């Protein structure tokens, strides 16, 4: 109870900040995926023949639920790197928080709550835009909102923990290039992973994006079976739990010195 209240206070701070600065995040969080959907879904998609492999639906509808996940993952990266480092090193807001009854673990919880809410909002906005553009195959795409949020958190939690160990931001560029980019392109958002060489698949299965895309697309087309769905959700949840566990440790090590 105490923990929830303390974490909520941290959440309120982020919300106060957001109310003043939401335009900046709205641009990156909203405009980019819409451009993707228009250019790749509608533009490029008009030249793509629908096949059985993509479920026989127009390409833009095939793409839309996966892009919700991609949006969440990009949002997760954005929220879990520079922003975390800044609150340790530059703005030092975390340092200010732990001088109050709030503990380092509660600082982390409040941060994860905030990121979760941001991912949910980004995903919801995206689904709304997709529906307006006729990219939604049916109401099932609404389920992509919580599922994409979960996938985003599964990437965010370990990344936040990692960011808490860094003294300078150089490593972030590497993450953007060699983790986020391939994850965006090669885990089933734009084409089925069955088109990839077989030896790559185990690597794909490790990514939160593949699990998220499988879930979101399955939910949108109503093709989700209980067993694989539970497996995907369990894997993503495990990533969140492990990430948070490491985060608690690293936040404590960083703040309680």
């Amino acid at each position, binding site marked *: 109870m105490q923990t929830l209240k*303390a974490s909520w206070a941290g959440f309120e701070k982020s919300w106060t900040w957001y109310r003043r600065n939401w335009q900046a995040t709205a641009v990156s969080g909203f405009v980019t995926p819409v451009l993707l959907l228009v250019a790749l879904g509608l533009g490029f998609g008009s030249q793509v023949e629908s096949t059985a492999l993509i479920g026989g639906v127009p390409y833009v509808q095939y793409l839309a639920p996966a892009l919700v996940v991609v949006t969440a993952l990009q949002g997760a990266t954005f929220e879990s790197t520079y922003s975390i480092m800044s609150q340790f090193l530059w*703005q030092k807001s975390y340092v*200010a928080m732990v001088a109050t009854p709030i503990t380092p673990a509660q600082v982390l919880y409040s941060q994860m709550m905030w990121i979760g809410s941001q991912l949910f909002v980004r995903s919801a906005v995206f689904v709304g835009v997709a529906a307006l553009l006729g990219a939604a195959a049916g109401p099932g795409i609404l389920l992509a909102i919580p599922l994409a949020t979960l996938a985003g958190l599964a990437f965010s939690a370990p990344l936040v923990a990692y960011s808490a160990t860094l003294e300078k931001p150089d490593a972030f560029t590497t993450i953007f290039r060699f983790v986020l980019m391939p994850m965006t392109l090669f885990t089933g958002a734009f084409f089925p992973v069955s088109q990839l060489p077989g030896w790559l698949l185990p690597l794909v299965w490790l990514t939160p994006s593949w699990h998220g895309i499988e879930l979101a697309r399955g939910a949108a087309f109503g093709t989700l079976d209980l067993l694989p769905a539970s497996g995907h959700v369990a894997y993503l949840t495990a990533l969140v739990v492990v990430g948070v566990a490491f985060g608690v440790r690293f936040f404590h090590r960083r703040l*309680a*010195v």
Partner: protein
Amino acid sequence: MENLVEAKALTKHFGAFEAVRGIDVEVRRGEAFGFLGPNGAGKSSTMRMISCVSGRSGGELKVLGMDPGRDGPKIRARLGVVPQLDNLDTELTVRQNLQIYGRYFGMSRQRCREKAAELLEFAQLGDRADHEVEPLSGGMKRRLTIARSLVNDPELLLLDEPTTGLDPQARHLLWDRLFRLKQDGVTLIITTHYMDEAEQLCDRLVVMDGGRIAAEGSPSELISRYSTKEVLELRFPPGARKPDLERFADRVEVLPDRLLLYTHDGEHVLAKVHEQGVQPVQSLVRRSSLEDVFLRLTGRTLVD
């Protein structure tokens, strides 16, 4: 009298580095207590342990009668902390900074609003209340940091180098606010490497050097114990040979550019020095300060 802080043989090390090497400290309710020492003396490490953020490596520590290791959040709920480096939310307004901080202490929104209004006045930032923090001057940010630390009506206020980097006017304004707090019965613990600040603010202080306590007492006690009433400063051109004047004073300190002659009558010694035909570039008779105490105790000057 009740002790708000009790430390016995308190130590803190980071790996092989010993920042605090066994200090005994007692801070009584209602007093202003100082840690005076140069950078790296272990003042900030001590403060972080007292503020229940950083754990101790050894020894005993009680804050507000409780063990920081066990009751950290409970103790922190009754402390105010002014860190060495401002950590305000610079993209929020002055008022939002105060209100949000109140929420960290579990205060109701209504209470946070009232308290913020009261503290804006205390910090003389009323006309900036709804401005963003970023463009404020250093002195204003510092006042806001202090106001923020008071949001929970702390019994014990910890100030780590509160006026470092501020111009003289901003410092005096800040000191004035701290005096007011002291009069209201708030116990203050201050670290500083400015001896004038320690003399102005502290009822009692310890001089720290190399992680240890070198001396303890009120500023005037320390001065009378470790120094003389007056000091004659004689300045010589750089590189010039300094005359041997040991016989005229109780003690002589040789600094790179000047001699300090410790005596109860500076003018008298100055006259005798002139009789010897010694011609310093500049001479000055002044009262002893904590700077002299520090020099005596450590052989080094406090601020270079």
